[in-house]
């Protein structure tokens, strides 16, 4: 904050981000930006570890890469998590909340809560990425879920040779780290340009990761291309919206735009005389930026990519992406709506109502007829995005904290559920068709029971985290005057419960197929990923109060 005001007084365009204006300011003395390294340490550690991972892949011998990458990734994430805890303990989430990085990033309760969640999700994600006991070993080498050599043509000569050589793609670890780094920035971004850059930083690695499946590579590559094309399209929305908002307010800073919207700041820049204060620019620009974020959370009508990408991507990537993207994108959406556009809530609330209702219903209804477990979970994630939007619409402190809690609860259920999906396999790799899951409860009662716990949590059955989260979100929405939304949400939950329970019925009350899949015995990696999922699901379901309080304390944005 202070940095920004200094620059403004030094002659830069008021409110425009200091880093850029300083560079553009002709003749002015170059002023060193002040960066609060301590406050930003979680992100810096993760990005540093990611860069280190790139170096390892470039210079370390092939044999040593896997171990080194795993070590760097886990240590980096754990250190960043420790930094988040340290910041939260020092009050950075509550009393000491501030804007850091010369106005670029907020270090406040929601940011730290979501960063902590994202780092834990990242750690569990690394566990599933590093699993090497599920695929049959290729010519003596243990391999993971990722393509032997991504650059080779599917089914071509290069691929055959790479598989024979037992190569693995250890680049996935730095890619994941970059994605986590971008996601850490995303909910903390405090101006529209940082938001955009964070979006790209985490999206591009995800596009790549989606293309890296070892099995069914064509499907995987198709998913990646679709995701990339549509993602680029939505980024364009976001960027265009940013431009329009700048035109309206003369600044890209969240608080700056909010001040212009509320009328406390006047715009003096003569260049913007034509556009400044034009409400159409504000409304359209705001809508476009929100749409860019709605794409990432998978809300209707920007959800079409979700099932295709979730199905095509390697399952560990799907799990990570489903959990982490949602956390990051909802964090950014909350900040945008609560910090930038609260003055417009009578404009955006009705529209978001519509989006939330459509999202809940479409996700729940279309999921009914799905036959592939990954697509089913994809539609389920759409429905959950709708439930989360209900909490966002509450426009209250409870709304923020309930969404935070829901995100934490939901991401671990999702990670666990997709980790279970990686274990049910037949000769062709993962057996994702639902018919193959018939009678799983007889063959592997433990695994089926664990999956049933996740499904019950998705359905929001009491004593699971899903219930606590849904209850918190709906309560906040009802208190925020969105009673109709809650009724529709509960109806959508009822519809959704049908297909979750159908899978449970299928697993426990159907005869197993003769040529059914087998359940692979995972290493300690996937086992711990699933175990963490179950523990979090049950603990947050049975004793949610501590975490609800934590989310409640974290539910205040710094402006």
């Amino acid at each position, binding site marked *: 904050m202070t940095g920004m005001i200094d620059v403004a007084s030094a002659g830069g365009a008021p409110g425009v981000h200091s880093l850029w204006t300083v560079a553009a300011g002709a003749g002015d003395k170059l002023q060193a930006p002040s960066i609060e390294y301590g406050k930003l340490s979680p992100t810096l550690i993760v990005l540093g570890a990611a860069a280190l991972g790139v170096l390892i892949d470039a210079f370390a011998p092939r044999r040593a890469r896997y171990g080194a990458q795993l070590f760097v990734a886990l240590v980096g994430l754990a250190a960043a998590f420790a930094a988040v805890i340290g910041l939260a303990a020092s009050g950075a989430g509550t009393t000491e909340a501030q804007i850091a990085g010369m106005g670029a990033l907020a270090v406040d309760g929601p940011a730290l809560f979501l960063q902590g969640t994202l780092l834990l999700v990242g750690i569990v994600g690394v566990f599933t990425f590093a699993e090497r006991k599920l695929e049959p070993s290729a010519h003596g080498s243990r391999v993971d879920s990722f393509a032997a050599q991504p650059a080779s043509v599917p089914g071509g000569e290069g691929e055959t040779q790479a598989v024979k050589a037992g190569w693995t793609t250890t680049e996935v670890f730095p890619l994941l780290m970059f994605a986590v780094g971008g996601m850490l920035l995303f909910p903390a971004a405090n101006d529209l340009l940082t938001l955009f850059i964070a979006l790209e930083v985490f999206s591009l690695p995800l596009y790549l990761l989606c293309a890296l499946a070892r099995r069914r590579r064509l499907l995987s590559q198709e998913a990646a291309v679709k995701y990339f*094309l549509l993602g680029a399209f939505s980024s364009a929305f976001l960027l265009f919206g940013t431009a329009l908002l700048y035109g309206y307010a003369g600044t890209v800073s969240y608080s700056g735009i909010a001040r212009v919207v509320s009328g406390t700041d006047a715009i003096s820049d003569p260049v913007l005389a034509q556009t400044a204060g034009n409400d159409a620019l504000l409304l359209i620009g705001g809508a476009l930026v929100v749409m860019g974020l709605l794409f990432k959370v998978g809300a209707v009508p920007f959800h079409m*990519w979700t099932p295709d990408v979730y199905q095509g991507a390697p399952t560990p990537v799907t799990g990570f992406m489903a959990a982490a993207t949602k956390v990051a994108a909802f964090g950014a959406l909350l900040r945008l709506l609560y910090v930038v556009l609260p003055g417009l809530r009578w404009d955006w609330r*009705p529209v978001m109502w519509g989006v939330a209702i459509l999202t809940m219903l479409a996700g729940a209804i279309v999921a009914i007829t799905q036959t592939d477990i990954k697509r089913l979970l994809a539609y389920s994630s759409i429905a959950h995005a709708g439930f989360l939007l209900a909490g966002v619409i509450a426009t209250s402190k409870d709304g923020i904290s309930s969404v935070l809690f829901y995100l934490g609860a939901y991401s671990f259920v999702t990670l666990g559920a997709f980790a279970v999906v990686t274990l049910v396999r037949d000769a062709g790799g993962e057996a994702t068709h639902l018919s193959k899951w018939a009678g799983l409860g007889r063959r592997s009662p433990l695994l089926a029971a664990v999956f049933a716990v996740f499904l019950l949590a998705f359905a929001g059955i009491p004593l699971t985290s899903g219930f606590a989260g849904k209850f918190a979100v709906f309560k906040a929405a009802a208190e925020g005057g969105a009673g109709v939304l809650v009724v529709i949400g509960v109806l959508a939950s009822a519809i959704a419960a049908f297909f979750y329970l159908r899978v449970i019925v299928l697993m426990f009350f159907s005869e197993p197929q003769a040529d059914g899949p087998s359940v692979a015995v995972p290493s300690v990696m996937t086992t711990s990923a699933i175990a963490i999922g179950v523990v979090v699901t049950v603990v947050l379901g049975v004793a949610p109060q501590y975490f609800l309080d934590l989310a409640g304390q974290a539910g205040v944005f710094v402006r």
Partner: protein
Amino acid sequence: MIGLLVGVPLLGAAVLLLGGRRLDRSGHWLATLLAAVSFVIGAVLFASMLGEDAESRAMHSKLFSWVPVEGFQADMAFQLDQLSMTFVLLITGVGTLIHLYSVGYMEHDPKRRRFFAYLNLFLAAMLLLVLADNFLLLYVGWEGVGLASYLLIGFWQHKPSAATAAKKAFLVNRVGDAGLAIAIFLMFTTFGTFAFAPVLSAAGEASEGKLTAIGLMLLLAACGKSAQVPLQSWLGDAMEGPTPVSALIHAATMVTAGVYLITRSGAIFNGAPDAQLVVVIVGAVTLLFGAIVGCAKDDIKKALAGSTMSQIGYMILAAGLGPIGYAFAIMHLVTHGFFKAGLFLGAGSVMHGMNDEVDMRRYGGLRKHMPVTFVTFGLGYLAIIGFPGLSGFFSKDQIIEAAFGKGGTEGWILGAVTLLGAAITAYYMTRVMLMTFFGEERWRKAPTPSPAEPDVEPAAETRGAYAPPHPHESPKIMTIPMIVLAFGSVFAGGLFKAGESFVGWLEPVTQFEHGHSPVSATAVTAATIVALVLGVGAAYLQYGRKPVPALAPRGSLLTRAARRDLLQDDFNHVVLVSGGTHLTRSLVYVDNKVVDGAVNGTAASFGGLSGRLRRLQNGFARSYAVSMFGGAAVLIAATLLMRAV
């Protein structure tokens, strides 16, 4: 200390049930010991209570807050006042004797440990019922008694008849339980609480309509547990349980719960004369009903069961009279506890010596073979018919007097009914006595199939060579409790009557008023003795002078109806069972066609919608992009529209 009263037998039940086989050899002694410990605690509390002033004798003890919700406070708290104390001593005292008796009676039963666990559970539940300081906790004990009775009546569950009887008792009791639940709901809505003290002290301020509703619901509850018309049908079948269980249910626990409930809620009934009138009617009807059924039964236990129903009818009637009757109801309850327990244990002793034969027509002349049983049973008999000087005489005489004291036409009717009941009681009990202990030794001859009741299956032994039983006196462990109870049967009434000591003891809890009897007490006593003589004489003429046929004669229409428990089961079957079946069938039909139709229709329409929406997901990125673009256009338009309107 008060909590221990409940806790000790509960601990016994838990230890015995969870302890497993290693307690098979010693468990029954542990259970008996714990019952005795509970009695000793009760006695100590009683002694310390006697040391207090009459008004400050009630003790309270709160264990913990059970349901601490704002505006809905229920405590795990006990109240021990004179009324509870009376019950505690009866329950634990008679209960301990029955435990002791059961040690002998159940000696060869393979599931003996479980039996004693249930007995302890029964005691614990009943103690909780009488010690609770609020209606909700009372309800817990109430249900516990229901559970324990279910387990014990169906203890020999390998017999289908026992399993059915247990289920019947449980189901009929549920009807009453619903009444109690509703009564508690009504109390909560009326008074905002269900603790005894505030409810009973505020009862005067509530409207009479509310009090009547609560009172009738409480009466329904009492009818269920105490086997009063119209919920009496389970009691006869409950004889399928082992005989000590019958003694426990009929004397010390379970059936007395209804009387306790009405007496405890006296303040509510005092404010609702209509409800009181219904209570009195129920008591009077049951009094005659049970007595008539008792006259016709040849099964010794069922005859006694009819008698219990009738005697509880006396108590309910007395309780319905209000403050002039409460103390007498409880007094009769206690004396009845002694002599009915003694009678049942005696009946069990007879069965024990007669190869579990229960048909009195197959008894006869047993006094020579079972002298102790004969004497103790005989004393119990004299007590129940109200032989002057024995306990039943005092307590029943008081009720008859109070019935007349009700005043007006009602008083005359009630007095007449109670006198008639006394005569019938004398008749059927004399019949039991004569058929069992006097006359020809009918068991020496093989039974022949009955021409009168061809639907009765011939007993198993008729098919082979008949081996007559060898009646013998029961072991000491069984006779000692009977002797102790016989002492109670003889002396308890006189003790209570002396100087109105019992009435004075209960007065702080139940209040007491003298009735204004239109006839003098002496006249009532004389009439009672006349009724007694008439009943005994009639029975003697019928069963003492003439040989008792080994097979039941066909009998008059009334006799046949009474044998079928005055058609109660037929009534229940026609009205409730078939009515219920029809109702269920029609509901099932509605459920299948209408409810399921709606549900399935909804599901099908969502499924269809899902299938159609799914086609939008065609896999082409270009279509997705168009959908995004279209969506964006709509959202922007909507946003602008919001601003415009």
